[in-house]
């Protein structure tokens, strides 16, 4: 047990990599063996994540150094710098880890029967494991260069998965757009890393934060990082790839690509809060984040209500909901140097923004899965051609209702809990922003009502008479998320106290992140 606790940060990333390489070999032994293997490996990973989460919750920040026992290396004249590759796991990393693992588990179970009988399944599961490894690596990494590497791993795996159905022209197009956008933004991240490395000769995030001088060059690097990561997390006006890619990704991979974009959001927070945390004047960067957030909310929802493709509509909603998170966190960022405002509403806004990530990933993953379930049965995503499906697909319809009510912020589902936190705290910062947020929520409800009406209700359509409910593994995958949504909605206090508040504290408390690595540095 001790061994697992000590080595869990490395194992959580290494096991999926191992599985990704092993799956093509194991697939030779048959479909059943491979599926069992994937599930067993993933069960093991989930167990490790749980162990690590408990560990981080009790002992605080964990630093795991690869290949040696200490992160630092003393130079001959006594000066110590962190030179090793290391993982630094704090509350926020763990929070993202929990999200990604839950979604990936649900997606994996969902995919088992969805993918049944299709070609290239070995590659599909292999890429899913690779995507998971990339995301977890990004959440855990403690240095900037590995941030770039894991960003690229996640992008490559995500793009290959999005273009998985190569028999459809639009699937390849969506995957292509994703890889181009990801490659360009990752290269600009690398450029920013180069600028930082040129000045401070270190790559560790903690060391960079420790040495940071906030020169104009640093600010250029910050701008490049913010731009590139906002692109990856699909903030308006850099969101246009998101609908294209989310629409075409198959089965359980859309939720995983969605989670990948929130991992980029995590990277953005890590950069702005931890690396540039000592910035004297955070108002500018705070307002940049707020404006991107408000634009995302508004443009995303207005575009969504217009769509007729069910997954495209949900993708635009993903853009719009991303705006809520940016709004909440941006408000906190703008007031972080003002202790009174921070205590009064800044921390609550941040809690809301962070809490919304987990809520949104869960309900949006559920919604994407219901959309994919419809596609699985009737072969179209066009809502114009749907109708009366609730008669044939009762479980799917039920899950859709849960997801739709949660995303529209209807109590008692989880979306309401985090949106309320955002509304109330943003109201104290700027009432106009809060009103916009509420309006967006309203339009969200309207657009989901529209799709519910046109897809699930109405008279039975003669074309869909023989449509059956989706297979069991897909229902199990969706019900995991549905149960979590209801649980989070009923016990928001518990969730905020146990996982959201530690994540917020980890981001705001820059000093302890630095000390975990730089503690021994004179």
């Amino acid at each position, binding site marked *: 047990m001790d061994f697992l606790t000590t080595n869990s940060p490395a194992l959580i990333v290494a096991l999926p990599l191992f599985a990704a390489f092993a799956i093509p070999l194991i697939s030779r032994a048959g479909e059943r063996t491979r599926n069992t293997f994937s599930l067993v490996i993933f069960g093991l990973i989930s167990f490790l994540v749980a162990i690590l989460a408990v560990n981080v919750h009790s002992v605080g920040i964990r630093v795991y150094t690869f290949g040696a026992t200490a992160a630092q290396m003393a130079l001959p004249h006594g000066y110590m710098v962190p030179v090793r590759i290391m993982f630094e796991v704090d509350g926020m990393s763990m929070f993202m880890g929990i999200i990604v693992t839950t979604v990936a588990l649900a997606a994996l179970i969902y995919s088992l029967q969805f993918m049944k009988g299709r070609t290239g399944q070995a590659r599909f599961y292999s890429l899913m494991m690779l995507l998971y490894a990339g995301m977890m690596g990004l959440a855990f990494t403690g240095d900037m260069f590995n941030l770039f590497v894991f960003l690229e791993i996640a992008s490559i795996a995500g*793009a290959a998965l999005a273009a998985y159905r190569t028999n459809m*022209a*639009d699937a*390849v*197009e969506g995957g*292509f757009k994703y890889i*181009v956008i990801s*490659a360009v933004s990752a290269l600009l991240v690398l450029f920013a*890393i180069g600028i930082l*490395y040129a000045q401070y000769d270190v790559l560790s995030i903690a060391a960079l934060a420790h040495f940071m001088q906030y020169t104009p060059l640093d600010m250029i690097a910050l701008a490049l990082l913010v731009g590139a990561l906002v692109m990856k997390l699909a903030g308006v006006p850099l969101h246009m790839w998101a609908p294209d890619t989310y629409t075409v990704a198959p089965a359980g991979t859309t939720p995983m690509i969605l989670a990948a974009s929130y991992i980029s959001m995590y990277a953005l927070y890590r950069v702005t809060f931890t690396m540039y945390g000592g910035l004297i004047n955070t108002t500018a960067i705070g307002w940049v984040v707020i404006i991107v957030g408000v634009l995302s909310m508004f443009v995303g929802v207005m575009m969504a209500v217009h769509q007729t493709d069910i997954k495209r509509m949900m993708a635009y909603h993903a853009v719009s909901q991303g705006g809520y998170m940016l709004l909440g966190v941006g408000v906190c960022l703008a007031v972080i140097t003002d202790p009174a405002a921070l205590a009064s509403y800044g921390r609550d806004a941040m809690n809301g923004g962070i809490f919304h990530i987990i809520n949104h990933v869960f309900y949006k993953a559920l919604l994407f899965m219901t959309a994919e379930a419809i596609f699985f049965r009737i072969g179209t995503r066009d809502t114009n051609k749907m109708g009366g499906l609730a008669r044939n697909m009762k479980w799917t319809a039920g899950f859709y209702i849960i997801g739709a009510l949660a995303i529209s912020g209807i109590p008692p589902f989880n979306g309401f809990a985090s949106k309320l936190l955002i509304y109330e705290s943003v109201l104290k910062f700027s009432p106009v922003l809060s009103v916009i947020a509420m309006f967006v929520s309203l339009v969200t409800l309207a657009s989901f009502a529209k799709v519910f009406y046109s897809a699930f209700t109405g008279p039975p359509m003669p074309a869909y008479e023989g449509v059956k409910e989706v297979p069991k593994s897909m229902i199990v995958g969706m019900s995991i998320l549905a149960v979590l949504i209801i649980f989070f909605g009923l016990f928001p206090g518990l969730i905020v106290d146990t996982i959201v508040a530690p994540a917020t504290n980890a981001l705001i408390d820059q000093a302890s992140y630095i000390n975990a690595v730089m503690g021994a540095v004179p």
Partner: protein
Amino acid sequence: MMESIPLNFPFLAAALLVGIALYIMLFKRNLIKLIMGVAMLASGVNLFIVALGYRAGGNAPIYTDVPPGPMVLSVPQALTLTSIVINVAVLALMLTMVVHIYRHTGDIDSEKSRKLRG
């Protein structure tokens, strides 16, 4: 000879590469040219990082039979190497996707081959 080249010449070259790459990516509608743009952007960034580690007159950072004298910083070279490897994978993936796009639509013009918009 080496002294006659200004030290920031590689940075100018990197800036030029990035500039050309951005021009290609933004204004060319041919998908293959777009990929060339991405490749050039990668080269520009890689050149930038390698140039960061250069010290005038330094040796290559390899201890096998090294002559005495200062060495070039090796970390940026390792970073560049990693980034090159990753870019090979990215470019291969992009090219494969363009081949698929061409197969489906018979065109590699991004305006004529698009299916997803609005």
